[in-house]
């Protein structure tokens, strides 16, 4: 109904009007959230394809893991008391070299170097502190699209004490809750289109039955 001629036609009952406005709202939310979250959905779809076909994808590369390229080598004279954990050492090194952010620490036992794996969405970095040589070596991972996609897919957020990590976690939460909304609102929107009910019922039933069979048998 065109709003400019709304006054010339008999007024619809109020329940019908509110039904239409709810339907219009759902349609708009379905569309605008879809447009906003399109990059997340593309990333999840492409990264899943990369992960399920990893043998094929990595056959285009000379090695399965990307090579590490040395960025910088620094003299590092700070000494740490023996009661300090390797996590605290890692945190301090990152702050000293100006790379504070999401990371995990390995090594550091029996005189072995402390290795700080600094996570980045684009290229990960590895910071190695060898106390016996008073040296810090900063390496970065060679960029590979499949590795980048897989890393983004696996990043959940919330696990580290950094605001950016929580922001990413929040966007992932929004994306997954919206996926549930799209599923349910899509069924609602389809049901309103009377001409598509036949084929729509067939599509929905085929999907639900197939999924149920797999859920029970696999």
């Amino acid at each position, binding site marked *: 109904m065109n709003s400019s001629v709304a006054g010339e036609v008999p007024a619809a009952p109020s329940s019908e009007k509110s039904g239409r406005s709810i339907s219009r709202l759902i349609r708009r939310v379905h*569309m605008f959230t879809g447009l906003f979250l399109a990059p997340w959905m593309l990333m999840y779809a492409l990264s899943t394809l990369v992960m399920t076909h990893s043998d094929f994808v990595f056959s285009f590369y000379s090695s399965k893991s990307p090579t590490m390229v040395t960025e910088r080598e620094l003299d590092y004279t700070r000494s740490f008391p023996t009661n300090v954990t390797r996590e605290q050492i890692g945190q301090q090194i990152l702050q000293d070299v100006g790379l504070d952010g999401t990371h995990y620490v390995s090594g550091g036992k029996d005189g072995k170097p402390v290795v700080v794996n600094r996570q980045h969405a684009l290229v990960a970095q590895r910071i190695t502190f060898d106390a016996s040589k008073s040296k810090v070596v900063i390496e970065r991972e060679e960029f590979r699209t499949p590795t980048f996609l897989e890393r983004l897919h696996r990043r959940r957020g919330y696990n580290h004490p950094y605001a950016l990590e929580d922001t990413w976690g929040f966007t992932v939460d929004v994306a997954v809750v919206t996926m549930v909304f799209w599923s349910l609102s899509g069924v609602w929107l389809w049901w309103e289109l009377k001409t598509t009910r036949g084929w729509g019922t067939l599509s929905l039933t085929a999907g639900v039955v197939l*999924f149920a069979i797999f859920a029970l048998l696999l």
Partner: protein
Amino acid sequence: MTFDKINRRTHLYMGLFLMPWLLMYGVSSFIVIHQSWFRSEEAPVWEPLFEKSYSRPVNSQGVNNEPDLRAAAQEILKDCNLEGAFWANKPNPDTMHIDRFSFWEAIRLTYSIKDQKLKAERQRMRPNQAVVRMHFRGGYGQPTFLNKFWGLLVDIACIGIILWVASGLIMWWRLPKLRAWGAVAVGGGVLSFLLLIWTL
């Protein structure tokens, strides 16, 4: 039939067909992100299933999931009527482990080559754990037709998502009244995503 109509119908019917997968990925992702809310980290108890004398030569030297080891594991599973998806490893020369898994349960087989004993234990999954197992299942590496067909459906779901994005963008562009707000949504999404990736 016009291109617009084909585009709309593709978006709609594909959406209806793949709705259970989208719902499953949405719910399972939420559970994975917020594991502590759903007690997903708590492993269910292992119940004994059987323990029996068993003999089969295992020639593999023990690299996880190497073809020879998988072939031997598959034979053992066949002997026990437990064929399906599995992982195999040989932590030491005398022991072989087979993890036979499905959405709703896990069966752990321990074959003691030296003692010629085969022990099986079962773990039943809660619904939240079963949904998460569906999420992580994909690819074509496991035996049986059903496993490979599930891999195909996961691929179809991924291609479906890419097509939804493409057909959704076309549908939006064909609605002149919504172009401005739609552009704000697309631009906002792309910029937020790029900014996060750049800084994350």
